[in-house]
Structure formats: C-alpha cells, structure tokens
C-alpha cells in the first residue's frame, strides 16, 4: 500500500502548486510531503526486504528489492531538494531573476519531475517504463531551460534532442525484447514479471541485439560515455537544486532500466555478454570524464563530469556482477546521489555569491561562505572516496571484487583514474576554497533551509560510512537478491 502514497503525494503536491498562491506555504508543504514520501519508502523497503519477496499489484505496479531501493534513493534526494529549494527560490526572487509566478511553475515542474521519476522503478510493464523515462526528459527539459537565457535554452534543446533520440533506440530495443518473447510461443506481453521467469528460452541472437539498443538508448540518458554529450550542458545550466536531481537520481533511473533488461539478458544469453558491455562503457566513461575534470574551467561542469565518472564506476560494479561488486555498485548509487546533491547545493550557493561559474575567478570560499565552504570541503573528500565516508566503502567493494575475480585490468584502470580524478578535484577545489577573497566580497550567511538540507545530506554520508563497517554481511545478503547470476 505505501507505494500508492509514494506516487500520489508528489502528484498532489504538483496540483497544489496550481492552487496555492503563497510560495512560502508551498515550500513548507513540499518539505512535509517529501518527508512523508521518504518515510513511506523506508516502510516499503523494510516490508520488501524482510519478506524477501516481490509484490505486484494487478495492473501496473511491480516491486522488488531493486525497485524499492531506487525509490528510496529518489525520495532522499527529493526531500533534500525540497528543503534547499525554499532558500534558493527566495534568493532568486530577491535578485529579480524570476517572478513569484515562475516560482510556482518551478514547484509544479519539480513535483511532476519527481512523480515521473518515482513511477519509473515501480512499473511492471517495460513499455510504460519507457514512457515514464521519456516523461522525465520532457518535464526536466523545462527545468533545464528554466532561466530562459541563451545558454540555458541551448542546453535544454541539446538535452531534449539527444535524449529523445537515445530513448528511441531504447524503444527499439524494447520492441525487440517483446518480439523475442512473442516468438517463443508464449502469449503477448511486455510485463517484466512475465518475461523474466522465461528469459532462458528466448532467442539468444535477438536478445543480444536488443540489449545493445537498450544500452545505447538508456545509456544516453544515464550519461555513459560516449553518449554523454548532453550531460555537462544540462547539469551546468539548470538551477542548482535541479542539477542535484538530474545528477543524483535521473541518471540512476536510466541505470535501473538498463539493469531490468540486463537481468533478462543475463538469464537469456549468459553473464559474460552483459558484463563485458557494462565494463567497457564504464571504463570509457571513467577515462573520458577524468580528462575533462583535469582541464575543467567551469564549476558546475566539473561536477557534471564527475557524475559521468561515477556512473562509469556504477556500470563497472554491476558489470563485475559478484555479490560484493553488486552491493558496492548499489551502495555507490546511493552514496553518489547523496554526495553529488550536496556538492551541487554547495556550488549553487557559491555561484550565487560570486555570480560566476569560472573556477579561476572563485577564491576564498571558506572566508566568504563559511558554512558552505566547509560543507563543500567535506563533500570533496566524500566524492573522491576518502575514508571514512561511505563512498570509500562502496568504491573499495568494487575494486576488491575486481581484483579477486581476476579482472586485473579493470581494477587497475579504476584505481588509476580514481587517483587522477582525486588529483583534479583537490587541485580545483583547493584553489577555490582557500586563498584570498576577491576585492569587495563580504561574508554572507546562508538561508536556514539550505543549512538544514546540508545537514540532512551529511547524516546519510557519515552515518552510513560507519554503520557499513558492521553490517557488511547483511548487505551481501541483500545484494544477492538484486541481480541474479
């Protein structure tokens, strides 16, 4: 039952944005709404994991551990974004960048965006999954072009066109999957719960080709290189809270879709095929993004390329496919969502005060914005996988399983490029955070809602990192349920 609340509340909030005129009430309502969504998704996770089963309701909805996990990640980031948005919009209106009416449009789009992203992991039908993912593109295109400047409209256009083309290939893949299913002599269906149990009798050649299309299609949306070109533009031009949602959750939804089809492919044609493709794309993403991170001049683009890097790590983790690696990858999905939201929030505050994105022009953030500065400093260490934060744990799990499984080259490349990215991050952020304030800058205080959002995000990062040291065994137990081998 909680799933109906999880899907219903964002939709109701979207409607309320049309009715309620007062922006402050709306902001508060959103926070409460997403707090409720988060608590329902925790309840749901508990139900599904403890009963160790799946739950399908007649019609569209099908839930298992994998889908509930992605719902949880979405709702955490959505709550943080709802909190952060209050202060962000307040400042935007003060500075005259947007009008009161536009702030309400923001809430409408934000809620519809969240709603469509929560639908993605909950649906059973693979065709509806496609429609839901395309819906996320269409809605978020408005959010990317929200400020209606030349740059943001350009980014929105590239985003909508590249992702739409990509996703057409995903539909092609979906059709081929359904063809493979229909020629196997069973009844016509696109439901995952119908296809997955009989995946082993499906035509191998068609599955192989179909999975390539799926990987290209949803991989575009996930930001896997070399289909990532829309990502830095969209992430850098969107308002900061939306960048957090795009990077933290939207990319993961595409990964979720790839995994759903991946499970069918694994059962149908064997693990090696899936594994090789995922690891290949993962490594390519890692290599390309680390290069761009080193030479980057724009703060938000830097974070966007780091998203590509982390998506690459996640793809490698799922591609390795041992329980340890899958647990690591799933954990990495969570960690990256939280850490990257934190960094985008920080970047949003910095850009607001300095009025520029250029890394070379921003100096002395810790003096100008003490709270944000320290948060970003910790965020940098979290994001680059420093112990004791939880990203370190998840990256270690992936690297260890690469070496214990004989994937030495993958493991070595992973280590090498993680080191490169670490260097790049420390170099860029070290210059930015420390150093002298530019002339005429004064110390600024952040709004309260922003601080709460930061503290809320810190909690999962720090607490999880420590808690994970004790629950490793349970985690593997859950991971074995995520991807069948």
């Amino acid at each position, binding site marked *: 039952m909680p799933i109906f609340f999880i899907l219903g509340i964002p939709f109701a909030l979207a409607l309320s944005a049309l009715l309620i005129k007062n922006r402050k009430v709306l902001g508060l309502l959103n926070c409460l709404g997403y707090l409720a969504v988060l608590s329902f998704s925790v309840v749901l996770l508990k139900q599904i994991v403890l009963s160790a089963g799946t739950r399908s309701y007649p019609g569209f909805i099908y839930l298992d551990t994998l889908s509930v996990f992605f719902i949880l990640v979405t709702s955490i980031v959505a709550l943080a974004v709802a909190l952060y948005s209050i202060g962000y919009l307040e400042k935007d209106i003060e500075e005259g960048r947007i009008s009161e009416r536009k702030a309400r449009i923001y809430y409408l789009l934000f809620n519809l965006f969240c709603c469509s992203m929560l639908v993605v992991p909950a649906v059973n039908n693979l065709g509806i999954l496609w429609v839901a993912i395309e819906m996320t593109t269409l809605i978020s295109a408005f959010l990317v072009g929200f400020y209606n400047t030349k*740059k943001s*409209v350009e980014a*929105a256009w590239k985003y909508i066109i590249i992702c739409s083309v990509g996703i057409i290939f995903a539909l092609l893949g979906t059709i081929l999957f359904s063809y493979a299913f229909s020629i196997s002599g069973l009844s016509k269906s*696109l439901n995952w719960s119908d296809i997955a149990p009989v995946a082993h009798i499906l035509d191998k050649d068609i599955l192989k080709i179909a999975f390539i299309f799926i990987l290209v299609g949803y991989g575009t949306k996930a930001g896997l290189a070399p289909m990532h070109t829309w990502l*830095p533009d969209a992430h850098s031009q969107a308002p900061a809270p939306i960048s957090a949602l795009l990077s933290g959750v939207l990319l993961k939804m595409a990964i979720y879709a790839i995994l759903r089809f991946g499970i069918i492919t694994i059962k149908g044609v064997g693990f090696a095929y899936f594994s090789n493709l995922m690891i290949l794309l993962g490594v390519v993403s890692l290599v390309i993004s680390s290069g761009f991170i080193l030479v980057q001049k724009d703060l938000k683009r830097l974070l966007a390329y780091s998203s590509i890097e982390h998506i690459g790590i996640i793809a490698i983790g799922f591609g390795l496919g041992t329980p340890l690696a899958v647990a690591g990858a799933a954990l990495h999905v969570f960690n990256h969502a939280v850490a990257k939201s934190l960094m985008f929030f920080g970047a949003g505050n910095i850009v607001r005060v300095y009025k520029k994105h250029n890394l070379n022009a921003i100096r002395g953030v810790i003096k100008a914005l003490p709270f944000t500065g320290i948060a970003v400093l910790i965020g940098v260490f979290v994001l680059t996988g420093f112990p004791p934060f939880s990203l370190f744990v998840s990256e270690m799990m992936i690297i260890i399983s690469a070496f214990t499984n004989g994937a030495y080259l993958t493991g070595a490349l992973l280590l090498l490029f993680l080191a490169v990215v670490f260097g790049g991050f420390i170099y860029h952020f070290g210059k930015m955070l420390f150093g002298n304030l530019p002339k005429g800058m004064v110390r600024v205080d952040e709004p309260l809602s922003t601080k709460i959002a930061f503290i809320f995000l810190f909690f999962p990062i720090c607490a999880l990192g420590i808690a994970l040291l004790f629950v490793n065994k349970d985690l593997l137990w859950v991971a074995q349920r995520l991807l069948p081998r």
Partner: protein
Amino acid sequence: MKEIILFGILVSTYFMVIAKRMPALIRSFGYQSFFLFLATFAIAWGEDQPELYIICGLLFIIKVSLIPYLLYRITNKIKAGQDLGLIINSQLSLFCALGFTYLAWIFSARLFSSLNQSLVSMPAVAFFMVLTGLFLMVSRITALAQVVGLLVMENGLFLLASTVSGGMPFFVEIAIFFDVFVSVVIMGFFVYRINKLFTHIDVGKLSNLKG
C-alpha cells in the same frame, strides 16, 4: 496490397530526404504517416481486432492531422525557418537513403530469419525509416528539421512494433502516442524560444556551451 502501402511509405521517405524546404518536408511526413495509417488499417482489417481500429483512429488524428498542422503553424510563425539548411545536398542524401534501404534489408533479413521472406519487407522498411530519421537529424541544421527526423524514427518504430510483435499492448500504444504528441508540443515550444532568443533556429550555431 501490403506491398503497395510499403512502397508508398518508402517513396514518401525518399521525398523527405530530397526536400529542401520545410513545407515540403512536412507534407511528405504527412504522406508517410498516412501510408502508415493505411498499413495499420490493413492489419486491423485482416486480424479483425477492435483495439487496432482505435489505434488507427489515433494515428490518423495525431500523426496525419495534428502534428503536421502544428509543424506548419510553427514554420509560418517563425519565418526564419523556411529553409532546411542541408549539410548534405539532396542528390547525395538520396544516395545515402538508397544505401540505408539496402542495409536495413540485410539487417532485418538476418535478424528475422525465422519470418518468411514476404514478411521481412515490413521490418526492413521500418529499420530504413529509423536510419533515415537519424540521417535527417544529423544532416539538417534547422531545429524543426530535427523534430521531423525524430518523428520519422518514431514512425519507423511504430511500423516495426505493429509487424514483428503484433503490436504493443494496447495501453502502451496509447501512452506512446500521448508521449509523442507531448514531445512535439514541447519541442515546438523550445523552437519558438530559440527563435526568439537567437533570432534563428540554426542548431549548428548553438555553440555557447563547450568543454
């Protein structure tokens, strides 16, 4: 009968490839959708499925009437967008399209080897449409032409779905129609915005964001 309809789709797609101006492109897209409608109608007639008739109706309303109408409207409002801006000229484009036809045939003959020879032509045309749509998107520089290219790809997928897997489940088909319509409206909206901000819709010149 089926062959004539498929031939119609093929020819209207060739027309799109050689079109130099927006109205011609939209008109050919209308023809293509109309032939698609006929193909679906023929399938519905043959299999006597009431659901397919509804899909036929939707196809006619959305793809044959509404979307071309919307595209015409946008083209008329933004006068800058009349010329397509061909990166590859029309003769060369036609040769490319012929090449795609051959590739699509080979690909679908290999992939659908279990189907008999006469049935392979339908997925072949479908793959041809997907390839040509992609080609149109890459080789035309105006934003509107890219939207049309996307629609051509989508038409191709519709044909593929209705032939090889006996159509998608009914509600999925409806959802996809809705989705396509919404995406055209939204892209149209962005074309307006681009035109307003940049005073052109030349996508090749959108190069503010790099690195």
